[in-house]
């Protein structure tokens, strides 16, 4: 799963959102690091919809403009959870290795 797809699914985890709502939420979730362009967003949404991970929820007209809201499906939630577990495992492995490294450094510093 790409980082963009991961953040889009995360953005839809709590409630259905429309295009710009997803862009804004992804920007916030990533601390401003992932700024989706509109063309990129709809490429990601097409792919996720084709895989059955998101689905069109409803349409609204807001200030004369069309807003389509997308919702996470059960498959989408499962895929997001699996990816989150995988990433958490990666983080845990990295933390374990870094702790061991810091421990070795402290031991070496103490014995010097």
């Amino acid at each position, binding site marked *: 799963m*790409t980082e963009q797809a991961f953040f889009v699914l995360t953005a839809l985890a709590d409630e259905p959102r*429309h*295009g*710009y709502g997803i*862009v804004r939420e992804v920007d916030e979730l990533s601390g401003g690091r992932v700024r989706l*362009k*509109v*063309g*990129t*967003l*709809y*490429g990601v949404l*097409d*792919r996720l*919809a*084709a895989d059955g991970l998101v*689905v*069109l*929820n*409803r*349409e609204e007209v*807001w200030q004369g*403009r*069309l*807003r*389509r809201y997308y*919702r996470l499906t059960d498959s989408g939630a499962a895929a997001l959870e699996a990816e989150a577990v995988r990433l958490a495992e990666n983080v845990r492995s990295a933390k374990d290795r870094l702790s061991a490294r810091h421990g070795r450094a402290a031991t070496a510093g103490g014995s010097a």
Partner: protein
Amino acid sequence: MSLLEDNYRSVLRLLPAAYRAQREEEMVSAFMESVGDADDPDVLKPSWAEIASVAALSVRIRLGGVGAAPRWFAWGETVRLVALLGLVFQTVISCVYAGGLLLLYAKVHSPGAHYEPDTGPGGAVGPIGDIAQTLAGGLWIAALAALLYGRVHAAKVVALIAVALQLYFVAAIVANDPYWWETLQRKGSYALLSLVSITALTAGFHRDAPPVRRGGWLSEPALGAGALLSVAVGVAGVQLDRRPWSWAWFDAPGLAGPMIVIAGAAYLGVHAYAPDRRTPAWPLALAILAAPVLCARVAGLNFSSDDAITRAVNAVMLGQSLAVTFVGLVLLVVGARALPASERVADAGPLVNEADGSA
């Protein structure tokens, strides 16, 4: 409608009409909201990054992968086949070159002035050039292997390096050549084939593209046999080099042209006698590849001399050009007719409303 919105809608025209019919309003809405804080929208244009994102989306849709509308999937398969055939041809050329070089080194320990047109004037590039050019050939082979084994990103990177090396060679040779314009036409037009291959590889093998199916003509035994045959052709090319009639058959366009004609004729046979195996991808891919091959062949024509050898070589090249043109045009017509009908709006995207299941 503001100027900004008008400009953005113009950018969206890059997308297929059916896709635009479904998505345009919500894309415009998302875009306009994203720039909603701008003070004076009338003087703004969409950023290059926004335009690039729409262009990339357009390429991904038009060169469709799994789940795409049949017509866009057919175009996607065509471009992916162009990339594959391009890489296979570069592999053939690399093996032919390596075969010829091996024989030359075995015979005279150095190709010297013999390969001057290819390795640099006065042997300036010399053995280092031979090694580098062989390395570039090896990179094409590595790119093909990476693509066949599902390493698409690696294939793109390696092929890009190979193209860069080839272009560097063209520039290095042209820079030292008093007849640089003729050399640029000859070498540059061959580089065009590499550029077509790398463009197809980059555009066609996007994230939604299905993996390459190994087997048949893309099986290891078939490719291995092809590589050995290519080395043998390279050796034969050097052996026959003193005979002028052979010159136009053993350079890159001279090898590519007959390959396109033979593959095209084989497909036309399939098209005629096995209707269930008809596909738009093969004829269209061969027709697309015929264009740079034809350019490279025509660029090799020499009308500045009128001796018997030049006339003979020109006659062979003209014959090849006519054959490639004829087969290319027939394949283009056959391929275009085999394309699935234009998409309907309902085929454009997976927009299904969960409430009523309607598109």
